[in-house]
Structures are given as C-alpha cells and as structure tokens.
C-alpha cells in the first residue's frame, strides 16, 4: 500500500483561519512541499533517521540544534569523526519511511507529485564534505545481497559536496524518476578519505518539492573524469569497496593517502598484496556506489565520450605482475556494467609509467565498476608485492 499524499497547505490554511490576511501567502507553493525535516518535532516531518550504516560509531547526531539553523527553530547537526571505528572507512544515515525499514515493510511513500529534493546545508568551518547525498537506493539486503520485498523505485545521488560555512541550498534533480515507492527518503554518507579529519555539518529544511521549470538532468559527465586524482579530492569518483574475494581483507592493504613519491599532486594510492589467506589471488573494484555489484538501479555513470582510461602505476621493487587492469565487467546483479575493457598482464616498473585501457567502441552508458585490478600470488613474489597507482581518469 502506498501512501498517497495530499499535503495540507498549512500556512495558507492557518492564515485563512486566523483571518489576519485574506490573500494567499506568496509562498503558498512552498507550503505544499513534502518535508523530511523542517524543525524538531515538526508535524510535517516524514521519514526517520534510523538507517545507520558503516562506521556508525563515528557519527554523532543531533536533530535539535538551535545555534545554527537555516529556518525555523532547529537544524540537524552531524559530527563525523572519520576514525573508521568499524574499519569501514565510511558512515552514513538513511532517513527511512518507517523505523529501520530496509525494504521489508510496505511503508514507502508515493512522491510522484515531486521532482526535486531540496535541502540547506553548511559546515561548521569551511570545506566539510558530504560524500554522497541520495534519494532511494534501498533495494537489496545488505547482508545477503538478495532483493528486498519492497524496494525503492529510484536511486539518485549527488556528491561529493564540499560545504561552506554559510548556509546554502542544494538539490537533487528527480525529473523522470520513479518516485512511486520511496522508502529511503534521504541518505547522507561520509567517507573518511574525503573528509580526512573530524567534521561537523548542519542540515535543514529538507524537503521534496515540485519545480515545474526543472528539466531532466543531462546525462553524461565532463571529461576528464577522475577515478583518483588525489586523496580527498572531490574530483574522485567510484569507491574502492569491491575487495575480492571475500578473504581479501586479510590479503590486501590499501592506503589512498600515500604521500611518499606520488606521480602527481600530494598523494597516490599504495597497495600491498600478501597471500595471507591462502586464496592465492585478490583484487579491488572501484564501485559506484560503494559495494555495488550490480544490484542497485540507476547507479552507474554515463561515461560515453571517453575513449580511454589512463592511469599511472609503479611497483615497489619492479617486476610486480598485475594480471589485469579493467573497467566495467561487474555482472553480479540486474543493473550491471554496460561494457568492459581490460589490459594485462602487466609487469610494473620501479618508476612511474602510464598505462591506457582502450575504450573505443565500448558502451560506456552505465559504468558502476570504474576501475579494477587483480592479480595472484603465482605470478608474483611469494612474499607479496607492493605497488602504487595514481591519476586514474577517463579521457576523450
């Protein structure tokens, strides 16, 4: 059962009742907005911030902050410590249609009358980062990967957003999206690699609106499109979350903030592979969003127009063999990469060298696996290898 919403034009009604002003208030349109958060305990609020994810101990949440507010009397204050206390490297909160509803309850809203999510946000200082802000996306069981019974009908996200110390309005374009069942009304996600240090952000006036002038967002991205530029760079896309196989956590170490001898900028990525688990192989997929093996609708980037992916790499000693560098090819769900391309095996040199994956003729309309590498111990030093990657980008 979907809740069909007919919002009361609360302000207008009040005005009429009070008889103070007989004409309609000029912002009557705004009064029809569907609020997630107006103020603490506002009767117009919907959704519950119950879906805590990732390093949940890294977040402090206060939804009745009174010192900072963009409107009304309170705002939401979130402090993210970036301590990776559960070793996830990220943390986030879902505002769910009913408490802890990860798709098992039929409590989602039909928000087809709206085409935009709007919210106000600021940082405590300046430069705080919201890695991802999204609407929808609760479609699969996070543990089993199985589709949930009542999935969100959309999954739209923006980010990363670097906040300023002033309140600013941000929005997510939902034109032509299917909003018939919205369970995850909003998700705010932080990534430790983006934030680096503890940060505090404020959110306010979060609501769905109908903007008749809003056009469908143009598809595609502007090139060059970075997978990795520097640690914490807002130009970065895709998350190195797809560690393979399941035992990879015992075999791999990834430092995205390695400052010793990067190819360009301040940092590069250092990767260490040892066959601790005995599995004999390992690799990492950079995914959009994190941990997406093809189960999340509408998540991929449209990278059409790119003719190659380039990156720089070097080995710690030289002769480290990477069996394959790859883009695309994630195929474990219904919403898989539209194509794939790869190079390898490659024997790395001790000095930085640029490599290129040819993307000509490939269908890059939906890419969730932006970059990947994999290798095995059989072709490498049995004691393991260390190598570095930098400047991964899609180019024309």
């Amino acid at each position, binding site marked *: 059962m979907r809740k069909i919403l007919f919002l009361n034009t609360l302000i207008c009604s009040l005005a009429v009742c009070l008889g103070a002003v007989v004409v309609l208030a000029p912002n009557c349109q705004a009064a029809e907005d569907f609020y997630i958060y107006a103020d603490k305990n506002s009767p117009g609020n919907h959704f519950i911030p119950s879906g805590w994810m990732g390093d949940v101990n890294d977040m402090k949440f206060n939804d009745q902050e009174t010192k900072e507010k963009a409107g009304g009397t309170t705002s939401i204050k979130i402090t993210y410590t970036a301590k990776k206390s559960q070793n996830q490297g990220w943390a986030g909160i879902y505002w769910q249609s009913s408490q802890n509803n990860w798709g098992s309850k039929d409590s989602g809203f039909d928000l087809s009358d709206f085409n935009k999510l709007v919210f106000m946000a600021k940082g405590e200082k300046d430069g705080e980062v919201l890695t991802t802000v999204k609407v929808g996306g609760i479609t699969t069981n996070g543990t089993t990967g199985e589709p949930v019974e009542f999935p969100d009908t959309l999954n739209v996200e923006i980010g990363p957003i670097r906040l300023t110390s002033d309140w600013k309005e941000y929005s997510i374009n939902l034109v032509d999206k299917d909003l018939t069942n919205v369970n995850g009304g909003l998700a705010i996600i932080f990534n430790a690699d983006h934030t680096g240090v503890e940060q505090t952000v404020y959110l306010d006036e979060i609501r769905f609106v109908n903007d008749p002038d809003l056009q469908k967002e143009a598809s595609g991205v502007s090139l060059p499109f970075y997978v990795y530029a520097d640690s914490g760079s807002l130009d970065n896309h895709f998350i190195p979350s797809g560690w393979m196989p399941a035992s990879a956590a015992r075999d791999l170490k990834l430092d995205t903030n390695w400052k010793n001898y990067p190819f360009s900028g301040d940092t590069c990525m250092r990767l260490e592979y040892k066959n601790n688990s005995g599995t004999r192989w390992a690799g990492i997929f950079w995914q959009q969003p994190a941990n997406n093996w093809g189960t999340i609708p509408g998540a991929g980037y449209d990278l059409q127009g790119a003719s190659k992916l380039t990156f720089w790499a070097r080995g710690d000693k030289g002769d480290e063999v990477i069996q394959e560098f790859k883009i695309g090819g994630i195929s474990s769900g219904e919403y898989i990469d539209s194509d794939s391309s790869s190079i390898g095996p490659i024997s790395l040199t001790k000095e930085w060298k640029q490599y290129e994956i040819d993307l000509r*003729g*490939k269908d890059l309309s939906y890419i969730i696996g932006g970059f990947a590498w994999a290798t095995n111990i059989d072709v490498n030093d049995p004691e393991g290898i260390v190598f570095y990657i930098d400047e991964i980008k899609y180019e024309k």
Partner: protein
Amino acid sequence: MMIRSQIKNIRCQNRFFFLTIFLSTLAPKARPPKSLIYFLVAGFSLLSALTVLAESPSEYGKKAQILRSQKEYEAAYKLCDECIANFSKEADLIAAKLKDFPSDYEVDDYKVMNVVAFCYFTKAETMRDQAESLSAEENLERKQELKDEAVRILWDNIKKFPYAKHYDEHGWYYKIAHISRKLIGEILNEPWEPPHEVYEEKKVMLYDNGSEFPVDYKKYGEFKGLGTKDYAYKINDPIGLAKAVGEGIYPNTTSVKFNPEYIKVKKYLFKIDHWKIIHQRDLSTAFYKWIQAPESPGVRLFNIAQILEQSDHTEHAIKAYYAILVHYPRSYGWTYWHTPWYIGKVAKYRLENIIKNNPHLGLAFEDADIEVINGYDNDIRNDQFIVNPGKLYKLKAKNIPSKINNTIARNKGEIKQVRGEEKIKLIQFQSGDWQLQVEGKPMILKALTYAPSRVGESPHNGTLANWSLQDTNNNGLIDAPYESWVDKNKNNSQDSDEKTAGDLQLMKEMGVNAIRLYHQPVELNKEILRQMHQKYGIYILLGDFLGKYTLGSDAEWESGTDYDNELHKQNMLKSLEKMVNEHKDEPYVLMWLIGNENVYGLGCNADKKPESFFKFANEAALHIKSLDPQKRPVAIVSGDILFLDIFAKNCPDVDVFGLNSYRGNYGFLDVWDEVKRVADKPALITEYGVPAYSQGFTFEEAENYQAEYHKASWLNIMDNSCGFGAGNAIGGVVFEWMDEWWKAYNPSHHDREGLFAGPFQDGYMHEEWLGLCGQGDGSKSPFLRQLRKSYFTYKGLWND
C-alpha cells in the same frame, strides 16, 4: 590394489582473476571419503592421537578417522564426543545463519561447523565399523543398536548441518550431508544415489557472426616480435576488429547485448554460477554467462570457444580459439595437482584438430608455435613464452581438400640408434621417428590396464581379492580371465546364447596385445600370465611402483618415500630385483615399467625432489637392465609431462617416456611434440580413459561420448606414431578393462558420484565407470560383462 586409484584429473584451477578458474570444469564437488584410505596406512599411534586435541579443532576428525581405521573404536568415540562437546554450540550458531553452502573462500569462517559435522559423521562411521566387527550370532542386539544409533546420528547431522563440508588434503571437499545420506543407505542396505537427471540441450543462437572469417588481424593492428619472447599484438582499430570477430570474441564485448536470446535471460544471469552452467547443456545461457564471466580474458575466451564448438558454431569457435593465440597466448590454468595448464597451447592444438576435421572450411593454419621455456615445473614465475600465433587463412579453391587428409608416412631413412639388445628393441630412424620392434617386426602397443575387481570387494576394507588367483566357483579356472561371459541383451542373466568366453578371449578379439600390471602389492599368478601370452598373444607391461604410495621403499606414510634416503633406495632396488628375478625369464614381459605418477607426490617426495627421483629412476633402469638378460626396454610411468625437462636430463638409461594423461577428447595435444623436443625418447601413454557415465546426459550419450573420446585418443596416438606427426608414439594403455565398483564409496553399489573435476563430458570423473565393459547390476560379478560401445570402437581400430 591397496592404493588410491591411479586416475588423475585435470582440474584446471587458475586462481587468477576474480574467481577461481578451472579450465574444464570446475567448481569443487562433493566426493565420498575415498581418501580416508590414506589413514589406513598412516601408522598413527593412539597415544599421539590422544595428546593432540583442543589446540586445533580440525585435528579431531582426522585423528578420529585414524583411530577408526585402527579399530580403536572407543578412542575414536572419545575424540568425536570431545569435539562435539567443545564446539557444537558454536557450530550450531554458524549453521543457523546459512541458507546455502558458503564459498570456498569463506571456509575459515565455517571451520568449526565443518569439524563438528565431520566428527558426527566419523562417529557414525565408527559405529558402522564396530557393528560389522561383531559376530551376528553373539551380538545381534548390540549390532543393531549400533546401526540404529549411527543412522540416527547421520539423519541428525543432515538436518543440523546441511551445508557442512569436509576438505581433503588436496582441497577437495565432500558435502557431509551427502556422504551421510550415502552411509545411511549403506547401513540400511538400501544404496542411495541422487537421481540421474538428463538435461535439455540448448545451443547458442548467434546474433553477430562478425564480418570476417577468418579474421585478417593485420588490418586491425600490428604483430610485434613474432616467434620471440616479446610477442604482442597491438590493436590499432578496436572498433573494426570488434566488428570483424563478432559476438563474444575479444575485443567484442558489445554485440551480445543486442542478441534477442541474451535480452531474454540477462536479468537472470547474475543468479547463475558460470562454472556450474558450463556442463549443464544449456549452452546458450552458458555462452551469455561466460561473455561476462569474472575470469581472466584467456580463460573466458577458452570457455567461450568450447561452448561455441559444442553448439556447432565451428567457424566462430575457430575465431575464438585463434583470438586466444593472438591476444592471450600466455594464459594458463591449474590442474588438480597444481601443475600449470597452458591455455594458448591447448587452443593451438584444438584449432589444428578442428581445421583438420573440417576440410570443407578450406582453411590453412601454419607456423603457430608456443614454446614455454621452464614450463615443466609448477612455478609459472619462471616461464617465458616464445609465441607465434601462426597464420590462419582461406585456401584458394583449388587447394581445398575434398576430405580429411590421411597423410602418407614420411621416409624414415636409415636406423640411427637402437635401444635394447635382444628380441624387443626401440629403433630410431634418421628422420627422428621411433618404433617399437618385437623380433624385428614393428609393434604399436594396443594395451589396457586389467583389474577385474569383483563387486563387493574393496581394498578399503581389505576384501579385494587377487584376481589372478580368484576362483569363486572352485572349478579350477580363474574367474575373470577364463569364465566371464557377455551379457548381450543386458538382462543380467546368462542366456543360452551367452557362452562363457573369458576376458582373455574378449581382449584378443578386441585386438589387445598387452596389458599393464604391477607386481605389487599382491603377487601375480605367473601361470595366468604365461597362458595370456602363449594362447592369446598378450604381452605384459610389468611395473614396480618405485616408492609411490611408499610401495617398495618401506617408508612411513606420512613422510613418504624419500629418493635421497639410502635405506629407501636400497629397499626399492630390492623390490625391483624381486620383480625382475621373478619374471625375467618369462616371455610375456615386453617392457618394464617404473613408477606411477610419482611426480605428483602422494606417499613419496618426487614432487618436491624431482631431480632426486629421476636420478634414482635412472639408477633403477640400469639395475633392471643389469638383471634382465634380454635387456628389455624400461619405461617410466610419469604424470603427464610434469618435470619432463628433469627427466630428460637425468634419465638417459630409461628408454621410454611413459605418462598417464587425461587431457580430454582431443587426444594428447602437445605431449608428442614436447617429448620429442625435450627428451627425444619414444612416448607411451600409460593411462588414458574417460567414464561412460555423465550427469545430465542419457546413458547412451555418455557411452557414445566414451567411445568418441577413445577413438580421438587413439587416432591421436597413431597420428604421432612412427612416420607421422612427432613420430614418437609407440602406443597407449587404455584405463581400463572393466568398471571397478570400489573406487567411490560402497563396493557393492555402482556409485555415480562425480569424484573430481576433469575434462570429460559433464566435467567430472565418475571413477567407477571407466571400463570398456560394465558389470551390469553386479549380481553376476566377477563373470558378467556388458561390452560398451568403446569396446567395439577399439575392436574396429585395433584390428584394422
């Protein structure tokens, strides 16, 4: 034989890219605890067993099995109970979370559950053993109690731990619920098998065949370093090349998306395991799945090529195989024994085979060569590939052969060298070809392994009788050789027109001229062997295990035969002396065999010390020759071509390179060329074969496949015999004459279990179905023979 079966598989396991890779099949599969036989000879003491414990949960089951085999029932129960008491709570919690088998990669997380389930199984198995050890008269009640309790435990085990596995020393696992169910069947005398299913076959429907056949790769890129270590093909026009090759072939990853068949199934593909689907006869789905399979490109392309070939898209398959040579000639997988399996080489030989068998395509394939320097060991890091993908092109109309060319033997020239001094010699001609000659006449070995094991008998429980002495009806005639009969109508009854023939007569009619036997662990009845030779013209290839399974060396099982150990060596030389002195004056001996796949280890350290092993093998050959007045040839029985280079360097006095080889239905691929190139010795396939059972196929289809496999294998041998091909093949030994029912689990039941992966019809080795003859329902064993199609195939080939 009190040994593990000699059959090895080719489980091409390449832990290379995103998932485990097996070339020919692949995911591990349940198998019954046959390997528990190892414990029977492990010589483990009770004292040490009882001091193991708690430090390592996984030790419990292993030690309990040893105690069970030693009939230390109470001690075995104690260990099992201790394990269950210590870990069952944790195991229950783990089991409660599972809805399916966890992946192999997560095995550590489920170890406790697996250990507990295995201990329950072991406890029940011990109860079964104890019940059997009691005499019926005196202990009827206790016997029944034990059986009832065992069955109760097993049902409980199945219910509580449906997803538990037990891993053997090679990493293969048994599904414990599965073997529990089998054991229940055995205890209740109601043998149980999963149902035999026949899958519907669905072939690939291609949407985009590509614009060219064959593809002229020069149009789309550049070949660099042809015939060198630096070979590479650089694509300049990926769009043009993708268009030319068509759907599913590198670098075309896009066309498939427009295939209407793919569109129908694409939403469901993610639910399918690409290794499981490959042998389920739904080639269409397998094709789409494999195009996006998370494997290395070479492995992916190889499996795509196979699927296309099986779907009769011969031209597209040719493109796929050739694309491997062009783009991924250095690809590899792994066999079960963790030996490399070079995909590029396999692709080359398959390509040659397909082109030869399809002359109507008018193709020529020339100059292809992939040499793997240092490719005979287990280390791929030292491999260097010298690659030339060769030229694949259309012949001009006038040059297209109308049918398969049967080439004429080349001129061999004069004799270059002779090995052997008396009646049996190996001749090498100036052309390089080798020939076996017996009393001056050329001979191709048309041989088989002969082990007519009676149904119900098993070396696992010490009941397997010596066939060469077995006379169950006490009529003075040895059963199998002289009293078998052919159940022509397969009614498991000897009808009036089904006269007693005897295996020897049947083999003679088939064209067999030799059988392979070992003088260990039981003594052979020489009189039978004499008659075999005198009356039926069958020679013996007589072998000594040379320390494999510790046979001959008297080594401890756990440490195995050490080829640097002087005592072990002396013992093995004595064993050889015994063999030679016992049989040297017998005319039936054609050749002496030494070893049996020792290079894979298992009761010996030849896998770890191959140089020591081969040096000793040479010493063994010299010793045999010093004892044999006829100086008959000595052949090693190796495991495929593993360590071929070390053999070549260290075994100048071994006359023949023999190898057990299970490489699929294309014959033996590069074996002949490699032996010629590296060792320049005559080559003998000392074992090859294929089961006559395949899950998902009808019995008739499986039997036909067995016959086709054997035919292809034999023709490959002939294609490389003296004057042809590599010119060094001197014959082959079929594995085996008849099905042996003890191999899997219950020796009274014809198990259909796929014991491990291999390059066979359904991807698995069904080890109880390797015979050219079946034993029907087993009720007339050891007399009844149901001759399979492969018997008649050989009858045609070997009497030609």
